[in-house]
């Protein structure tokens, strides 16, 4: 009974069911070949890495009661910066230089996050609007960096972060695992998680408890920016080029969805890293499965839409009450404590 009540039960059950479907529908679910693991499961894990990264940052932002719409644009910028710099390298396969370039791209992304965070925490603009600015302008910046072209690169160290394998596992997956571990340690081994949940749960009570919300708020946007940047690198390494139009297109919606599926409320407060990871992998698996079971690809989005609609409605307390509530006389006013 308690397991049923856990908010991650249903997402986990759906994920499991989808995976089982895949065991039967895919040619290879998981096999070992040339010292690498292959198969649908590995594809899912590899493919979900960018979404996991973006959703992680989004989780922290949402826990403070904010939202970050600019993640897709930041991905595009990050990929554009990296590809531009790599293309100019004498030797595109120089590991040291490529690593340095990736660090630069992530630093640029973190700066963009700082911009978002400052608009929200210092200027005091609503998060949706503040990040809308970068969402619109960011893609333009990316196009400007690439000069409207698609920059192709031939760098094997760069490609490795998306398509490489290490210890039989995809590198992209390992990066995502490392990021999850980092965020888990950062929020749960320090007091960061508690303070974020406190700020998101009740800003006024947090202020009176002496929490400096501004710094924390800026920080989560910086983290979100940096992780989006990393996700952008993986995306661009995967296609070996910078595509400023389609990189991270609409990923903010998937990321927000992953966070919501993972049981973190959009109004802020309690967040679940594990839930978000589950949500992100679920979305990716759903996409793979829909194709796998032969649903025409044109129905993929419709299928997803139905899931989203159901999820949104189930998040509404009033909806749950009306649909699942027992038949009892409705009070004129919902329970309110008299002042």
């Amino acid at each position, binding site marked *: 009974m308690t397991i049923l009540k856990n908010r991650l039960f249903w997402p986990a059950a759906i994920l499991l069911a989808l995976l089982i479907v895949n065991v039967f529908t895919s040619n290879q679910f998981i096999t070992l070949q040339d010292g690498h693991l292959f198969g649908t499961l590995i594809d899912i894990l590899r493919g979900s890495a960018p979404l996991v990264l973006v959703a992680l940052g989004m989780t922290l932002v949402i826990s403070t009661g904010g939202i970050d719409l600019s993640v897709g644009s930041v991905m595009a910028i990050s990929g554009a910066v990296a590809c531009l710099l790599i293309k100019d390298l004498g030797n595109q396969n120089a590991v040291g230089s490529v690593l340095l370039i990736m660090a630069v791209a992530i630093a640029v992304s973190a700066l963009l996050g700082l911009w978002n965070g400052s608009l929200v925490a210092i200027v005091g603009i609503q998060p949706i609007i503040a990040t809308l*600015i970068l969402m619109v*302008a960011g893609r333009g910046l990316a196009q*400007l960096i690439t000069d409207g072209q698609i920059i192709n690169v031939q760098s094997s160290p760069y490609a490795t972060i998306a398509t490489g394998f290490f210890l039989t596992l995809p590198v992209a997956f390992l990066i995502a695992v490392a990021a999850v571990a980092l965020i888990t340690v950062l929020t749960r081994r320090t007091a960061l998680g508690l303070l974020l949940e406190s700020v998101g749960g009740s800003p006024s009570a947090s202020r009176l408890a002496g929490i400096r919300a501004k710094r924390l708020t800026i920080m989560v946007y910086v983290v979100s920016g940096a992780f989006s940047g990393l996700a952008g690198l993986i995306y661009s390494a995967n296609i070996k080029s910078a595509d400023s139009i389609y990189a991270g297109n609409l990923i903010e919606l998937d990321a927000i969805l992953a966070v919501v599926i993972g049981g973190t409320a959009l109004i802020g407060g309690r967040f679940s890293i594990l839930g978000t990871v589950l949500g992100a992998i679920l979305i990716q698996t759903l996409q793979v499965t829909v194709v796998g079971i032969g649903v025409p690809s044109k129905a993929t989005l419709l299928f997803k839409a139905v899931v989203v609609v159901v999820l949104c409605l189930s998040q509404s307390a009033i909806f749950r009450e009306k649909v699942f509530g027992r038949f009892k006389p409705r009070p004129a006013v919902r329970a309110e404590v008299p002042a």
Partner: protein
Amino acid sequence: MTVMSPEPVTKQAAINPRRRVYRPNSKYIPILATLALLLVMYISGVANYRNFDQPSVVVNLFRDNAVLLVVAVGMTFVILTGGIDLSVGAVISLTTTLTATLLQGGWPPLLVLPLVLLLGALLGAGMGAVIHYFKVEPFIATLAGLFLARGLALFINQESIPIRDKLWTTLSDMRIPLGEHTKTTPTAIVALSAVLIAAAILAWTRFGRNVYAIGGSADSALLMGLPVARTRIAVYTVSGFCAALGGVLYTINSTSGHALQGSGTELDAIASCVIGGVLLTGGAGYVIGSLLGVLVYGMIGTIINFQGDLNSAWTRIVVGVLLFGFIVLQRLVTRRAR
């Protein structure tokens, strides 16, 4: 020994009803700023480029941005109540795909037209009802609407569908002369009419004023006995209808329907409203402002076209910068008004 002395205070102590210093009405500042911006852009265009002073430059702004204009009109209603509608782009997709498919299937055009408009309005009404009755955030409810509408569009057809219906091709080719060398299209006329009708509704009907009241304070509106539920559902209905109309205009302009059409239009529409001085927190702004916002959008594109060697990416960057400027301006204005 008490603060409020009970003995009557002299008559002169009656409060000065205008205790604040007079200053230009702050509610017009953003719209005037947009207008000034538009004029500066136009004048610098005329000064720098040959043929920029031709009337067709201005007339074509309406033709090229007819879809965005209609969508921005609907968005204005939603934003005025303090909401947001992310689904408009997807509703455009759905409308164009459905219109093209039905026309291809030989449905009578005069049935298809009201049908798709009704569908858009119904989608909007549905989202409005979810937002009002289930207290789902507008952002989330319309995001779900976005997925649903685009999902339906893709389900119907993923390819671009040509339209060969006579009415559509006739409308598409029709030009309405406006003086000697300038002509415009029916779509531009429709878009402009939408602006005028919306402006009249917002200024002169109870529904329009209720929209503003809800944006000012939904709680107060409820306590003043205004029909909050009806109004809130109505604005999303209007927005859905406008998006569908935008979709129809698109099919007329391009004589085709495509499920990926309209992607991102929601952002352009929201940005146009903000640049036009519509307050994103609701309660302040004018449709005419949104019109100006769309024209600024269009003007940026026109200038970049005339320049020729400029990357189209500049459109987005300039829009981003303008958004930033206008949001900060709005914050200053509202902070001062408090």
